[in-house]
């Protein structure tokens, strides 16, 4: 029956982690995701890893995009990933990192469970495409 038809939507949490006040990029992504038809939950600035985990679990997002430009990614991202693991949410959350991530740190983040890293200059279309293709089914 049509009323049972699936109205599934891709839900994304766009999160700003740590002491980093630069949210222009997060805003651009939030807007672009919205225009791509996703539901975007924006965390606001200066979020601690546990706050981001709490939001990701409660909102049951398929995609978590973490924006970090402060250089603290190697500390913050693992904390978030561990938190997701704690709630059993790591397996079906696509974790993306955006921002300034040095080349030499990428491999480690990806090994920890980050699906992709989008550095400066990435076209938003590329990110959207990646999300569409890889967002886990719920």
């Amino acid at each position, binding site marked *: 029956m*049509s*009323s049972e038809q*699936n*109205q*599934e939507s891709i839900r994304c949490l766009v999160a700003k982690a740590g002491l980093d006040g630069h949210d222009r990029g997060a805003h651009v992504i939030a807007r672009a995701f919205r*225009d*791509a038809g*996703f539901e975007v939950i924006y965390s606001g600035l200066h979020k601690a890893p*546990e706050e981001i985990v709490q939001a990701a679990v409660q909102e049951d997002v398929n995609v978590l995009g973490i924006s970090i430009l402060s250089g603290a990614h190697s500390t913050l991202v693992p904390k978030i990933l561990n938190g997701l693991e704690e709630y059993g949410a790591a397996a079906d959350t696509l974790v993306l990192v955006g921002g300034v991530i040095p080349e030499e740190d990428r491999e480690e983040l990806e090994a920890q469970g980050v699906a992709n890293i989008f550095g400066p200059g990435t076209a938003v279309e590329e990110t959207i495409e990646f999300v569409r293709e890889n967002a886990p089914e*719920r």
Partner: protein
Amino acid sequence: MSNEDLLEALLAGEHRALARVISKIEDRSPGHRELVSKLYAHSGEADVIGITGSPGAGKSTLVDKLAETYHERGQTVGIIAIDPSSPFSGGAVLGDRIRMVSTVGDMDVFVRSMSARGTLGGLSTATADAVKAMDAFGKDKIIVETVGAGQNEIDVVRTANTVAVLVPPSSGDVIQTLKAGILEIADVFVVNKADCPGADRTVQELREMLQLGEDAGLGGGGSNRHSQAVIDAHNDWRSEAKEEIESGWSTPIVETVAMDGTGIEELINALAAHREYLVNSGERADHVRDRYAQEIRTLLREDVHGLLEDELERAGSVHDLADAVRRGQTDPYTITRKLLDPVETCLEGLDSDRLVDDGSGTDFRPK
């Protein structure tokens, strides 16, 4: 995870299961109805509070402070924050979480953002179902927060037992408030940002408006036949209770400054007083009955809509039919009549005329 496991995990108090159940409700995923219908047996205890008001009125900040205060008093809180979705892409930016800062890192306050997906009526069903899930989970207080503009939003906020309407100072004269039909749904008025210029005047104007209403039998939250008729024409929610009971509740006006928590105590007291009033006057039972009546109506409407969509598909796509209209071969009225005739015949054969929602607001209860 199967529905049974999910339900079990939810009842056992796993937050992730609650989150997943709400996702299923939002997604209208297969089998979600079965799940929701099982929730009814476990719900009915929670106190549901609706908060509405124009964008920027301070709803999210106020909800945050309410949640914090309830939480400090040892009560668990669920929050459903609803934001509009883009009519163009269907996407949405849900920003209410930004203001919810007082209770971070504490799962006992469960915040869920929702957007309007699908068609009219869908959101209020999804909200009511999500409230049910939080209720069954065992949340003591459930707060539904939404921008109060238009029928859809007002339907949503009516899933609550007690509705607080936020009016920011200098938000135009009170005629602006009347427009949205907001006067009738308020059980409590909150003049937020009470430290801003113009707050006194807003309080004064609201008070006058309420007194005017009471004198003329048009009180806010009371029996408001004229404007109720307007609402009924569209959707006869709560009408029975309104007609039968002369309301003994006089809508209080509470001044708050959500940013620093001023007036939150008073607001909580006003909300509690309203709840007490509902219980003592017996209105709560009517309220619950009317809400279920509305749920039945909405579900039926959705299902019928679904059946008709299917029929439309079978008749060739709606685009082909529209093309036929464009070419001057037929017109929308003829098409609609042709599509509905067999449905009508079928329903006549069913001998259950009183179950047919013809849009005139027929009561579904057996005569």
